[in-house]
Structures are given as C-alpha cells and as structure tokens.
C-alpha cells in the first residue's frame, strides 16, 4: 500500500460510480413510472370503435360510446348540406375547415355529443320547422340544459352560452366502416 493518494484515480472512481448509480436509479424508475400509464384494460376500453355506416340512413343519427363520451354520427341529407351555408351569418365560426360537414367525408358528421358549455348532452333535431327556441330552425342540435344551439355540422350559434363548436373526435373511414379514435 503506497501512502500517496492517487486523486485522479479517486476522481475517476467517483465519477464512474456516480454515473453507474444514476443509470441504476433511472433504470429502476422506468417500471414505476410506466405503471402509471393506462393499463391494458384501460387501453382495451379506450380503444378505437368501429361502426358500420351502411345501415345509417340519410337524415338519421347514431350515438356511439367512445371513452365514456357519446359520439354523434349523422348521415346528412342533401338538403341539410345545401342549407349549411345559409347559416353562415348566424354561427360564430362559419369556416368549415374540415369540409362541408366538418368531417373528412362530406356526407357524415362526427361530433362529440358534449355541449361545450357545461358538458350536457345536446339533442338532435334534424327537422326543418319552427321551434320554440328558433323560428327559422334549419335542423341541428339543441341543448335543453341552457339553450345552446348548434347547426347540423356542430357549429355553434351566436348568442348562446356555449363558447365553441361541438368537438370533432379523431376518426377515419375504412370502406363502409367508421373508426372512432383513430386518425389515418
């Protein structure tokens, strides 16, 4: 044993053991942090939902549950699509950036059935007739909780409590099938 302390050797040992220690701690953190990710069960319950569009007639709506949210799937009639531009000056945000009915497929409108005001469920009223809440109703969604109005494309009317359009969930089309929860 020499009496002289080799400081360089000591420093190298400090650094390497420090790095090894940090790597060990980091590696051990992985399982603990990963455990917080959605479990396989949660993933299965939250997985994309497939829906067969061929049975959905024009003018009708289906409600599908996806991640505890009701999803509205509307098969638009030609008349409804023609009527949408007429409402441009009555809605807050007339731009239909995602296509005429706010989806990648012109005929179908896919919306989260959750009012953007306080998360009530808006009701589907496709009829073109005077309503208690609107004398010039051209079809759309009406929220009975606080009277928010949306058109058939989910665009919010001016002067209602809801601040924004009904949300469009991630979705894609596969032939006749609609897949909710997955974008292409």
């Amino acid at each position: 044993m020499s009496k002289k302390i080799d400081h360089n050797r000591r420093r190298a040992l400090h650094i390497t053991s420090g790095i090894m220690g940090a790597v060990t701690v980091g590696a051990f953190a992985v399982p603990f942090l990963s455990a917080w990710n959605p479990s396989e069960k949660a993933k299965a319950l939250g997985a994309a939902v497939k829906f067969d569009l061929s049975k959905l007639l024009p003018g009708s709506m289906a409600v599908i549950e996806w991640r505890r949210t009701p999803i509205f799937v509307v098969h638009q009639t030609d008349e409804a699509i023609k009527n949408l531009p007429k409402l441009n000056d009555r809605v807050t945000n007339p731009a239909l950036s995602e296509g005429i009915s706010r989806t990648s497929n012109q005929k179908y409108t896919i919306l989260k059935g959750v009012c953007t005001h306080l998360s009530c469920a808006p009701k589907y009223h496709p009829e073109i007739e005077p309503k208690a809440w609107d004398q010039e109703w051209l079809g759309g969604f009406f929220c009975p909780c606080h009277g928010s109005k949306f058109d058939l494309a989910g665009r919010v009317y001016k002067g209602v409590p809801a601040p924004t359009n009904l949300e469009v969930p991630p979705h894609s089309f596969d032939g006749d099938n609609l897949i909710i929860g997955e974008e292409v």
Partner: protein
Amino acid sequence: MEKAKKNSFMSWLDKRLPVTENLERHLTKHPVPKKVNFFYIFGALLMVIFMVQVITGIWLMMFYTNTEEGAFASIEYIMRDVEYGWLMRYMHSTGASAFFFLMYFHMFRGLLYGSYQKPKELVWLFGCFLLFLLMAEGFLGYVLPWGQMSYWAANVILSLFGAIPFIGPDLQVWIQGDYVLSGATLSRFFALHVVVVPLLMIALVVFHIFALHEVGAGNPEGVDIEKHRDKNGMPLDGAPFHPYKTLSALPAIGIFFVIFFAIVFFAPEGGGYFLEKPNFEEADFLKTPEHIAPVWYYAPFYSILRAITFGIPFLGITSKFLGFIIFAGSIAILFIVPWLDRSNVQSIRYKGIYSKVAMILFAASFLTLGYLGTKPVNELRTLIAQICTLFYFLPLILMPIYTKYEKTLEVPDRL
C-alpha cells in the same frame, strides 16, 4: 456525573440515545422570545391539526373503499353505519379547512414580521413547500369521495396539465392512468393522499422545525434576542420553550378546539363552503354540475386561474395555459420572498409606508380573489379578478425596490 446518581435509568439511556441532550436543546433550554403576539400561535395549532388529520385519516382509511364502484358508497357507509364514522369524517373535512385557515394566517404572520429574512430563508422555504404539499394533499383528498364535485373539479385541474404545449395531452393521460378520469386515477390519488404526500409533509415539518431551532424564532418587533445574554448564556429577552411556550399554547389550543368542534358538530358543511352540495351526489361522467367551484381554500388561486382570459397567440400560448402559468406563479413567487425583501428591518412595525400599503393591498387582493373564486364568472367579476391578480403580484414583485428605498424606523435594542 451528578445527574447519573439522580436517575440512573436516564443516564443509561443517554449513553445510548441522546434523549436529555435533545430535550434540553429543543424544549427545556431552547430560548424563544418572551414577548410575542397571537400571530405566533398558528405554528403550534398547525402541529395540532396535522395530528388530527393523521389520526382521523387513518381511521377513515379503515372503512373507505378506493374503487370507482365503491368509493361513494363507502363514504355513506362511514357516515351512517360506522360508529362515530360521521365524527371521523367531519373532523377530517373540517380539519382540511382549518389546516388552510391556520396556514394562511401563519404565512401572513411571516410576511408581516419578516419571518423569512436572513438567516431564516430555509425555514420559510420549507414552509412554502409545505403549503404546496398541503394544496396537493387537499386536492387529492377531495377526489376520494367520488362525488360530483370531486369528479368535475378534478377534471378541471387535470385538464390544466393537458393544456401544457406538446407534452400536455400525454401527461394528462399518464397522470389519470386512463383516457378519462376513472377508477385508475382514484386509486393512485388514494395512495398519494394517504402515504406519499403525508410522508413528505412529515419530513418537511421536521426540517422546518430543525431549521427554526437553529436560527431561533422571531418576534413582532424584529429584535434579535441573541444580542443580550445573561451569565448562563440564556438570552435576556428569551424564555425556555418548555414550560413557558408549551403552557401558554395550551389555552390557545383549547379555544381552537372549541371553535373547531362547534363547526364539526353544528355546521360541518360550512354552508357549502367546507363540503360542497354537489358532492353529496355520486360522480356522473355524463352530467356536469351547474357551477364548478373550488372549496374556499383554493378559491383565491382558482380566481387567478380564471382571471387569465387571454393568451399569447404569437408564442402559441393559449389562455388556458397562460392561466396555469400565472396560477403556478402565484405560489412560486412566495418561495423567493426572502430574496425580494431588501429591508434593513424585519418587522412591518418598523418598515416604511410602502411596505404597509403593499401588505394591505396584498391581503385585500387575496381576500377579494377568494370571494370571487367561489362565485360564477361574469364580465365585471373577471375584471375585478384581473385587477386583484395584478395587486397580488405587484406588492411582491416590487418588493426589492420599495423595501430598499423606503425610510424605516430604528429597531429598539431590547424586546
């Protein structure tokens, strides 16, 4: 050696565990200022309420079910079927309100009398961490009954994490353990509420007190009691912690419990402010309550969050995310107060007019924000909240300037 003859058991013990040494150091010979005012009782009361929460919490845990299906029913079971279950629960829920009440007064005392100034920075810092942990603890605990307000208030708070650019949505899913707030979230919140956060709090309380005993407690005059000592080295303006401080705390603890139990027995819901009415209904993910309001102790900070109705579009910062930043900043700024105060005196009594006005503005803004936070928003209230947010921050942000230049009074030599 003389002591050894008196009590051989203590001497046997002291050779193996420094009992007498530490009792003397922290109790019987620890000097505290002999003259303080009522503001200095809140620390002791906080220790008491912490113990109340731990004990009632352990008992509640014996009957509570931490699942989505069972949580709400188990609270009803505790309230109706468990003997004195209602007492445990109301003590715990009232205890939460009391904890915050005492904490806010304790911290305001610190701000008034400069209890954060050199060399007490760490005492203050540990205290701020305790406030942060208490807020986390309260939030986690509020979710556990799985009532409507538990569910929807948690949704509001968790969606704040979702508002963080880039990582937000994934972070929110990771915290929730699901794509929506669900049973997975509930059971991890339970683990955090009963184990992780309380453990951290106990550790920080220990640090808080050890640091305090190292630098010595302050007083409303801001006089340094260490300057003048008697022959035995005891400060002339000090008195031993035990029995002087311990005994004088007892009546205060008594009065506190009278008020505490008056609330527990006669008004445990606190008019909807301690236990909110929608929370007597089980969580329903398809039905949002009319008006989501936080419990009173979060109201000032919730108000700040809501007051930010604008974002910074060219930086891609949404109003929601900016609100989150300012909201976090309103707590974070408290941590740096020791380095913002450049005054040559500690106590507000000897500080200048600017410090006094600043403290009044700060306190008034905090109270107004608290009031607004429990009310639904409208344009006027949002405007007032924005002004109050400004006057919450300004007294702290401008502190380095006004404390440095204002005229202070001379602090007396003795207490």
